[in-house]
């Protein structure tokens, strides 16, 4: 996730010039953005683990009860299938509970799950406010706004990422597509959608938590039952974001990871700071 088109070699050679012993760094992330970014890790983990436990008590995806087992829950079917077909994953005695035993705080724990879910949900909303404050204070919000050229650039980035493992294997040089903004188009789309997903999760959460007082909010999402479906799939949007997010940060290297901890990035072009828009 480099923000510079300049190869690293040049940056090093410039910074070791005798008259310039200093390193050039850029302020990349505001303190509040960094804090809320890392706080999201335990909060989202708590929300997802307790959320799947809540889901257990009344699954959205059900079928007619199986005549032999009485099972009606699709996630229980998945657990039974995993235990039957994936060796080494049979850790607990009850295959229908496999998903809940591994991806939630456990089946049959509704009261504990609800309590944890409300705690994390209020923390998530506060943390979201801190994040927005950090975006405003640091001016970072501008870097997240979608641009007209994003569709074409996102495709270029996507092609680059897809071809990257093959290029590594064949040791072929593969130029990173150039851009002079903080994020490339694909990153921008992701980092713009995640706060949006957070807002939608909060809205659907309130719609199913207080369906009588927030009846019209639930109606926006198609009513109480539909809002539950929204809330469930919005969780998967977070999961689908986090997996490539973590992989790409590791692939990109230390400077990107450190940027979210210290706020500073040393991967800066020595030449004039690039003009804003393309």
């Amino acid at each position, binding site marked *: 996730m480099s923000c510079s088109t300049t190869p690293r070699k040049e940056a090093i050679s410039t910074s070791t010039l005798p008259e310039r012993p200093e*390193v050039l760094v850029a302020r990349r992330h505001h303190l509040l953005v960094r804090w809320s970014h890392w706080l999201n890790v335990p909060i989202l983990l*708590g929300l997802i683990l307790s959320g799947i436990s809540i889901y257990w008590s009344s699954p959205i995806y059900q079928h007619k009860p199986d005549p032999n087992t009485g099972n009606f829950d699709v996630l229980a079917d998945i657990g039974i299938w995993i235990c039957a077909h994936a060796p080494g994953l049979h850790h607990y005695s009850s295959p229908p509970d496999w998903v809940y035993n591994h991806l939630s705080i456990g089946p049959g724990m509704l009261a504990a799950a609800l*309590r944890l879910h409300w705690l994390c949900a*209020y923390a998530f909303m506060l943390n979201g406010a801190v994040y927005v404050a950090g975006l405003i204070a640091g001016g970072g919000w501008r870097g997240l706004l979608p641009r007209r050229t994003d569709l074409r650039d996102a495709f270029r980035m996507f092609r680059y990422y897809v071809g990257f493992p093959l290029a590594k294997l064949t040791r072929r040089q593969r130029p990173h597509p150039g851009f002079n903004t903080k994020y490339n188009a694909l990153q921008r789309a992701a980092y713009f959608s995640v706060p949006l997903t957070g807002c939608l999760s909060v809205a659907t959460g309130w719609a199913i938590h*207080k369906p009588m007082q927030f009846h019209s909010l639930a109606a926006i999402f198609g009513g109480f039952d539909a809002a539950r479906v929204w809330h469930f799939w919005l969780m998967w949007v977070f999961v689908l974001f986090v997996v490539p997010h973590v992989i790409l940060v590791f692939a990109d290297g230390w400077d990107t990871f450190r940027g979210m901890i*210290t706020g500073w990035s040393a991967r800066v072009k020595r030449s004039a700071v690039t003009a804003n828009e393309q």
Partner: protein
Amino acid sequence: MNNKARGFFAERPLPEFEVDPQVLRRRTRRDVLLFGAGAAAALAGGGFLLPQATLSRVGVRLDTNSRAKEWFLNQALRIDDDVAEALYSENRMVATYTKSQITPLKNNYNGATPDPGYISGWKLTLDGLASGLSVSLDIRNLLARFSVRDQITRLVCVEGWSAIAWWSGLRFDDLIRAYPPMSQAKWARVESSVNLDASGNPDHYFMSLDLATARHPQTLLATHLSGQPLTVDHGAPLRLLAPVKLGLKNVKAITNITYAAEEPRDYWAERGYSRYDGI
């Protein structure tokens, strides 16, 4: 978009400055250490807050002070209850539906369904009244005395499912007007002495209801479902129907209502659920 607006939304270059490599190294070390401390604190905090049953799955045995843990987790419930109470308004009606929108309603008795034998001798006893007396009413008294209203509303269960059903019954508020509670009363304890546990043994069901909710125009003491007298599955002959509360507050087969100044005990609050349960 005009030029000025584009200028405002346009991305600014990141602020850049030069630092001594030593300074960058020190700052990195300091922040990474802080970050590590934060990660360790989050891990410890998570271990502290997760139920022991969950921790045992991953082989962790934490003898945390469970009193402090319960207190902390209950604070989240209290805050949420306060929010729910602030959202409540006696003037805000819950949505009503048409008969074509009615959905099936299951018998969600937590334990065994009681034997219908209790129905013939059933009486509703009122206590904590302004008169200081105890009043007993049978279903015939109730239906003769009070006007019956129809209402098609959604009943929402804490488990996540819901059902739209056609209820009929008297307004709780009408009963309160006919038999006024003592002046200090802020709560009603609504209970069923015929409730059973899973193995069929008597299991008193008692629930706290704030009088503001009891007085809501859509809070009924329901006698009929879909135009028919309530069956034993749905709490014959009289059940609470407070659509602004979760289903677990909607006591079936009510036998006693006691008005009180202090918040009464609550069956589900004692089992880790919230107290107010306003939706």
